[in-house]
């Protein structure tokens, strides 16, 4: 990945606080009998990283994937793709010892691309190179750029090198952008080379330049409400990436700004920055960030400042009025592996919840810094990147939450202790969260979950028996 620099137009947090090296709160002593030491960080938490790419690619109309990998990997990734991404048939070459000994990794990849390209209506075949193929040395030069008039790209997502599935979404989007929205350079009158962002000077192009593309996989209702707000500013949403329409990717270089609403698109953002497109980071979650985000869009697109201020303030006030009506109360741990956990935590904190611990699968970067600083200034004690199950379970002991938004194993562990819990990916990551419209639904979901606490306690007691006295906590074996 290219080195990340502070993006232009990052106007959301006035005080970008350096958080690197900030010591986390001292750990409380472990309860006696606890069987997992926090020192053992054994089990990183992420969906298979490659799935992030498959999720993005298989959902695009006219895109077929060809997976180059061993049978176990192929079975698992096909399974989760067919469950979570699209009902599309997936082509692959047989790829085992026989093929490896023969050394025909390129032929295998090519044959699968050819098979994939046969589907009527195919515009792009993405060859997905996974651990085994990467180790065997499949490279871009080995594949043609087209087969049967269909474009071919190589998407390289070995799980041993890309550590989380959100970051693999970035790999896929970046691969498409590099093919369909590569930087074009022009030399200005005074001999300076700079990125060309206009394809022509016509009216449509001008209109496009007033619009924004949102970068980040969000619930379909979010782009609609964002578009509505932007239209009031005289702007609008040109597209939301990842998109199901391949043409949307081609617009990315030509819009007025890219709003990278999730913090893990470093590669795609670097590609678009090199093409001269201004980048807005942060997302419209909760009153304060919503206000700042709308103002940032206004500034990046040079929209009417008075109108921007008015719309931003109105949207902030709407958020605040919803919170006033439905405040949250309780201690919530936000421990997903989707990469957007900091955004959700902000929303919950502004709505009144206490969020002492947040963890995610993605790495710490400049794009997480603003939200981290904001959260730590408001009571969050620990933010863990590239987290492990052991760290999350330790947080259950330390913080005694009222609600856990976690990975599957963590949620299962919380429920086993009688604590209300939800699988973050299925229940939160797929709901609207932006602006006032998204806020209302999310707060309602969390309020209802907190109210269900007696049910979780009852179910635990039914299956596990009465809870032992508080003084001597039972040995909870977190991996059992």
């Amino acid at each position, binding site marked *: 990945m290219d080195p990340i620099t502070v993006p232009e137009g990052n106007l959301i947090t006035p005080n970008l606080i350096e958080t690197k090296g900030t010591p986390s709160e001292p750990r409380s002593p472990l309860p006696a009998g606890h069987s997992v*030491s926090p020192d*053992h960080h054994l089990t990183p938490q992420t969906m298979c990283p490659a799935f992030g790419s498959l999720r993005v690619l298989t959902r695009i109309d006219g895109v077929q994937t060809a997976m180059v990998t061993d*049978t176990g990997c192929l079975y698992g990734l096909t399974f989760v793709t067919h469950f979570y991404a699209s009902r599309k048939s997936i082509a*692959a070459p*047989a790829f085992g010892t026989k093929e490896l000994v*023969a050394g025909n990794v390129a032929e*295998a990849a090519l044959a699968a691309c050819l098979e994939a390209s046969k589907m009527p209506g195919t515009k792009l075949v993405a060859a997905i190179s996974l651990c085994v193929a990467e180790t065997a040395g499949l490279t871009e030069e080995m594949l043609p750029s087209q087969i049967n008039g269909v474009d071919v790209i190589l998407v390289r997502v070995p799980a041993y090198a890309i550590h989380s599935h959100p970051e693999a979404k970035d790999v896929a989007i970046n691969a498409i952008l590099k093919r369909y929205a590569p930087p074009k350079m022009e030399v200005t009158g005074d001999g300076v080379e700079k990125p060309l962002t206009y394809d022509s000077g016509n009216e449509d192009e001008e209109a496009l330049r007033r619009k924004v593309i949102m970068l980040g996989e969000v619930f379909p209702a979010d782009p609609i409400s964002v578009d509505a707000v932007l239209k009031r500013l005289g702007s609008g949403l040109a597209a939301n990436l990842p998109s199901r329409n391949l043409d949307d990717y081609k617009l990315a270089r030509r819009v007025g700004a890219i709003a990278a609403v999730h913090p893990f698109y470093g590669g795609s953002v670097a590609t678009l920055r090199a093409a001269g497109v201004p980048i807005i980071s942060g997302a419209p979650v909760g009153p304060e960030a919503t206000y700042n985000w709308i103002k940032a869009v206004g500034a990046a697109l040079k929209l009417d400042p008075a109108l921007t201020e008015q719309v931003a303030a109105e949207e902030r006030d709407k958020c605040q009025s919803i919170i006033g009506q439905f405040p949250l109360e309780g201690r919530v741990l936000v421990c997903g592996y989707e990469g957007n956990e900091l955004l959700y935590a902000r929303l919950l904190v502004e709505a009144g919840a206490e969020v002492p611990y947040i963890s995610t699968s993605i790495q710490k970067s400049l794009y997480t810094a603003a939200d981290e600083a904001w959260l730590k200034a408001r009571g969050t004690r620990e933010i863990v990147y590239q987290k492990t199950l052991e760290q999350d379970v330790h947080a259950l002991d330390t913080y005694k939450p009222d609600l856990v938004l976690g990975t599957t194993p963590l949620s299962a562990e919380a429920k086993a202790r009688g604590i209300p819990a939800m699988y973050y990916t299925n229940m939160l990551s797929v709901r609207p969260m932006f602006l006032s419209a998204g806020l209302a639904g999310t707060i309602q979901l969390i309020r209802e979950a907190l109210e269900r606490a007696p049910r979780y306690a009852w179910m635990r007691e039914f299956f596990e028996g009465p809870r032992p006295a508080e003084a001597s906590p039972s040995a909870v074996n977190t991996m*059992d």
Partner: protein
Amino acid sequence: MEDIVRSSPAGGKPHAPIELIRDLESTSGYWAAVWTMCTMPDVHVICDAPIGCFNLVATAVPDYTDAIPHIHNITPSVMREQEVTMLGTAGAVRKTIEALSQLYPDKQLIVVSTAESEMISSDHSDWLSKLDPPIPFFWSRSLEGDEWEGRDRALLWLWERFGAGRAKISPADQQAGRLVNIIGPTYGCFNSPSDLHEVKRLIEGAGGRVNLVYPMEATLKDTPRLAESAVNVVMYREFGELLAQALGKPYLFAPMGIQQTTAFIRRMGELLGTQAQAEVFIEQEKRTTLAPLWDLWRGPQGDWFATTDFAVVAGRTYTEGLVRLLADELGMKLAFASSRPRQPGEMDNIQIRETLHKKQPAFVFGSLNEKIYLTEAQAKATHFVPAAFPGAVVRRALGTPFIGYSGVIYIVQEIVNRYYELVFNFLPFDNVAAAGQLKAVNNPLASANKLTWSEAARARLEQQLEGIPWISRISASRELRTKVEIHAIRQQVREVTPEIVEQALAQP
């Protein structure tokens, strides 16, 4: 373009043709080993794997195949770039062993290879054997074999390493105890809780007593007890027979269909010396469990079995069993069957996909893959019945068996109910949300007397109906005719021509 694929590498010989796969239906030896060994609570597996291989096998997939939150007794070595390119994985495995030995001193650690660790030749057997205590290493052959072979090997390996030579029981005791093992159920076995429940019932009905259900209901420490039984039942044709052979006792496969189940009970009675009890059980079953089949057979439902076709794509046990029950015993028409692992001459998924795109049987028993192919073909009149993995389906209730007498009834009941559903869906109804539009559908039909059909147009419609399963053809013909006539009226023509039919059919 075919040339690109066949072209030979620079300076080299032409390679063997590449075998292509669509929607792989069987996983690898690594998955098989984990899904076999981790069923036993006193085992803890270390998989020598990148994080993805761990997540898929331990959480992402068994969430939806076995309805469990995650497999708890497995930890990855977490192979990263440095392990793959420079260091090898021994250090990462050693660190994991040290941590787990502290955490679970009473568990048996087993290190299992994965495709990626095999790719970089990470064979740990030597240094693991020198540890105190030595840690067993299972080379899962994930770059060669499939999951069936993998489970077969893992079961045999567990017996050889943790069972053989440790058993303490005399043959006389076995016969007296009439003990029977059931070999086979692991994670990732479609519908196995129900089937297991039925196999236990059949064994007990025939006069036996269930000893070990291995590995699903056993611990690793129980392994020597496999030697206690007089007879073994192998649940699946796909795997488990290797272990049964090594145990050296008579073994039977779990039965499907009426005749095979009857033969199973009789043979079990003979092997256990409980023939009389087995015969009584069979007679009782005819009056109880199996009675619904006799009733349905004599009722109106029995008539249309012979006019209904079906296809099966599933594990070998289910494929052979369903063909035996539905085609051989009930007389349904078999469109095609393909078992897993694939036998010579059976269709692969590429061929199955093409076949299902062309013509869809009334019932397709299969995995999510077949469901996708039916979706691609927009098959509305075909019933998909889950009968294999992959696919997200909860099968933890004990009342949905395919095996044994109970399985006969469950399958027949399922088919009849789906037939009722099909009939219901083709009956006319009042659409409340679009009440006015219903009349618009009916009126053109009423006024269609004024329309004439050309012979060619009629033939074209007949041809279209050929592709629709027989049981729904009458309803479908009415539906298609209405569609064509509405189109004709909208086009303001007096005669329905083949072109009009084509245009109407092309509409969604």
